[in-house]
């Protein structure tokens, strides 16, 4: 048995970096799309009109109960045989979007209905309009509730891009297959590929956990909110004669 590492990795570095970039592109584009579509489906499911609810429910159930690989084959090979020829990046992203949107819509729906009804009522009682109530009161709270599940889905999506090897999407897994067929060193190559996925996913999920903690503790993340709180702090400090001396805790 020869040594474990015999593949000339330095020769493959540019290709691997390319492949890594493609994996990241698939992830970013598909996840953004899936979040938007998932939110739209979740809103349809919470709509007052039953046809909208039914449509959204059918969508969710169909795509939740079909394997991702089948969806990938349908969009890339299936649609092509019906005359709709999508390039591999479009087909790959489309598959990931429709599949993950189904799961995300369930997470978002649960999160939106998980916001206490009293919140909407408090907004109404303050004369905030419907869009204001959704945008400023319900959605921000729903996002907090949805964050853990959504983060899991993001990492899961990143790993699922490896299924695109079946349509030769030139992402990490495809690159691994190419190197293997050139070197016949499957164990070594796929160990390295697996390690690269781990090196991507582990820090990402840790980062997302950190984000969850920050959001939960109420740290203002938008510059707009930070500015408002800074201004509030200045106003509060400007008080000359407070009944109780107040030490402003600056974050």
């Amino acid at each position, binding site marked *: 048995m020869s040594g474990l590492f015999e593949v000339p990795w330095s020769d493959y570095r540019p290709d691997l970096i390319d492949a890594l970039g493609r994996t990241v592109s698939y992830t970013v584009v598909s996840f953004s799309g899936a979040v938007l579509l998932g939110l739209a489906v979740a809103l349809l499911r919470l709509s007052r009109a039953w046809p909208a609810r039914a449509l959204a429910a059918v969508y969710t159930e169909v795509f939740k109960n079909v394997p991702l690989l089948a969806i990938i084959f349908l969009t890339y090979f299936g649609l092509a045989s019906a005359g709709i020829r999508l390039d591999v990046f479009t087909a790959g992203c489309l598959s990931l979007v429709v599949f993950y949107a189904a799961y995300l819509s369930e997470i978002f729906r649960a999160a939106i209905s998980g916001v*206490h009804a*009293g*919140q909407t*009522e*408090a*907004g*109404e*009682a*303050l*004369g*905030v*309009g419907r869009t*204001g109530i959704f945008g*400023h*009161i319900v959605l*921000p*709270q729903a996002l*907090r509730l949805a964050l853990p599940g959504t983060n899991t889905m993001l990492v899961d999506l990143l790993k699922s891009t490896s299924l695109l090897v079946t349509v030769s999407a030139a992402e990490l897994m495809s690159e691994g297959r190419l190197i293997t067929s050139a070197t016949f060193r499957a164990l070594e190559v796929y160990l390295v590929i697996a390690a690269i996925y781990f090196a991507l996913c582990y820090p990402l999920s840790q980062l997302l956990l950190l984000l969850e903690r920050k959001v939960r*503790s*109420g740290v203002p993340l938008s510059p707009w*909110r930070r500015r*408002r*709180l800074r*201004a*509030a*702090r200045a*106003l*509060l400090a400007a*008080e000359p004669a*407070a*009944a*109780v001396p*107040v030490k*402003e*805790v600056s974050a």
Partner: protein
Amino acid sequence: MTESVASATPAARGSSQAVIRIEGLCKSFDGRLVLDRVNLEVGRGSIVSVIGQSGGGKTTLMRCVNLLERPDQGTVEVAGETVHQGGRMVCRDLPRLRRTVGMVFQRFHLFPHLTAVENVVLAQRKAGVPEAQALERAVALLRRVGVAHRALAQPEQLSGGEQQRVAIARALALRPEVLLFDEPTSSLDPEATREVLSVMRELAADGMTMLLVTHELPFAREVSDHVVFVDGGRIVEEGRPEDVLDTPAEARTREFLASYGNAS
């Protein structure tokens, strides 16, 4: 002494104009009548307390004022404008009506994702108040209710009494003409209840018009100009607080007061 200030207030305002006028209000939920031909008037600068057992329709009556609940019948007038009539909403601008009427809930319902000061700013910004002005007013109101030192805290970091005081500041932010209090101290411990009642007492002294659903009978007696006893969806008895609470005319009122151990 607070009492005298409060009762002198309506006279000081010198107006008998009603901020809230309700006539023949009926409301049922799933065929169960919870309000039966109720009439109620809250004059400018006056304080009206609604008392009665839980489930008697008090809260529903209050929620009909800002149309969180839609009456089935009757007329609701707010600030001289008919907003609901004969089971039909005639209010063209619901947000504006609700800015005229501030509301404080039993369970506070502060926005948990925002700090105390942002809670007071939000509705102002949505109503078109410029940022700097909204913020300034929010801070001033938090000072007024005595929670300015907690302005940058999240609601979950606040005690119940602090949360309810922030909620009062939030309700005051849009300069409403009347404040509705829906059992504002029912989910508070005695200490927090004292904090909140003292803020309400100050508002009363400032001449704020208030409609109050409460179980705090001594407080109702102290600040109210008018007490309404509601039972089974109907107004059983109403009048000056000392009359209703001390020498009730109706047997049902006496029974209710006795259950509170109110022997005075």
